[in-house]
């Protein structure tokens, strides 16, 4: 049964008075067992179901790409780069990759080579602790290169030039397993992110887990709640007609609990990014993905 059909069935149940006890669905089960695979462009297989990482300790029995929770038309858009509305931004990002910028007369490609070679696998291990011991997101590494090697201006975290380049870099890792490090120097950041994931923020007192762990596969109004995996970022969000960054989405989720949210590009959301990414270790990098 498609999701729309399921929702229609849910509505029919509602109007037919099924309310003996509860219309609640069971969370943490496969949202779409009929859909067996995702292959992009007929050549990039994407792991959309994977065993839960050990650190989850049973909190999720299995992990699922958010793609599985979407309706057929949205899923199809992501299966073909000519249909994926994020791909023009990837092209713009590749153009920026090859363009000289800044006082040193360099492009990204001058040091890293072709983006297909230089950046393959990078998205899969982000965010990552840098040589100085600080946790950096991909945006931080990009801006470090721009400012300190190219003599160019830093990109704004949440503006189009940054989103273009992060989309272009993510696309070079599509199909590779997410595999962020959570031990060693990353451990304290991971713990901080974990703590945030389970903290019930805001006047609505909701944590990430309230929706994405305890209620994935249920509906808030018409929205089918996923596990909140971030392997598909940056995401082309149809309702915003725009590429959306991980931190933008986190900011919005926390805001929608009626909380004072966290700064995009701030230490808190970097830590949360690491923790949430680690809940998806084993899924494929899927960005730029398409979501409603």
């Amino acid at each position: 049964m498609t999701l729309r059909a399921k929702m229609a069935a849910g509505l029919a149940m509602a109007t037919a008075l099924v309310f003996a006890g509860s219309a609640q669905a069971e969370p943490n089960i496969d949202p779409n067992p009929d859909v067996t695979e995702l292959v992009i462009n007929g050549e990039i297989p994407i792991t959309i179901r994977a065993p839960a990482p050990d650190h989850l300790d049973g909190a999720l029995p299995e992990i699922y790409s958010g793609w599985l929770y979407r309706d057929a038309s949205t899923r199809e858009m992501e299966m073909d780069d000519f249909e994926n509305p994020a791909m023009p931004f990837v092209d713009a990002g590749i153009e920026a990759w090859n363009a000289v910028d800044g006082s040193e007369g360099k492009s990204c490609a001058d040091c890293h080579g072709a983006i297909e070679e230089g950046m393959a696998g990078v998205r899969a291990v982000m965010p990552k602790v840098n040589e100085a011991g600080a946790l950096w997101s991909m945006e931080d590494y990009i801006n470090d290169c721009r400012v300190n090697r190219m003599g160019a201006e830093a990109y704004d975290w949440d503006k189009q030039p940054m989103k273009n380049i992060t989309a272009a870099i993510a696309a070079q890792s599509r199909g590779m397993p997410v595999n962020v490090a959570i031990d060693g120097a990353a451990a304290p950041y991971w713990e901080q992110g974990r703590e945030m994931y389970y903290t019930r923020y805001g006047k609505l007192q909701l944590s990430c887990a309230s929706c994405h762990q305890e209620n994935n596969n249920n509906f808030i109004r018409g929205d089918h709640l996923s596990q909140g995996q971030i392997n598909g970022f940056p995401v082309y969000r149809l309702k915003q007609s725009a590429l959306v960054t991980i931190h933008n989405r986190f900011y919005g989720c926390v805001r929608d609990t009626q909380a004072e949210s966290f700064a995009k590009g701030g230490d808190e959301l970097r830590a949360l990014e690491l923790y949430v990414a680690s809940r998806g270790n084993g899924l494929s990098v899927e960005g730029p993905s398409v979501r409603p």
Partner: protein
Amino acid sequence: MRKLFVLCTAGMVMLPSVLAAETAPGDVVFGDLGAVEESLTGTAGNAEAGLEVATTRSLGNCLACHVAEGWAHMPLPGNIGPALTSVAHRYTEAELRGILINSKHMFEGTVMPSFYNVDDIIRPGDGYTGKAATSVEPLLSAQQIEDLLALLQTFDEPEEE
């Protein structure tokens, strides 16, 4: 400040004895199982006003999480919480009031927001702006809770087996 204004305005049209009947969030008395016997306002709730609160996104937004025959005219209710169609058979008036005010007393760890509560809020925001709140008000007013209660008491369809 807003509360003060409301009180002043109310004071002009109501008797002081009626005013004194409104219970502040911190003064609500919960029974052992989380029920609240006393009306928050002393003024009977209005089910029609309660339906407005239940189905308005910026107010109770109950249908975001609950199915109910009483709002079957609204599209796509959520299913996070239990269906409410026969809820008047399952809980007493006092229990329903307690659930609306702060259901965490009755259901430990529930994800349901506490609609008349200002305690233990972490990083309270100014509505849905993402900015910090300057003062923490409950999600709903005392009378809105009583109005929702009046609505739920009309949800008395027979339970199905």
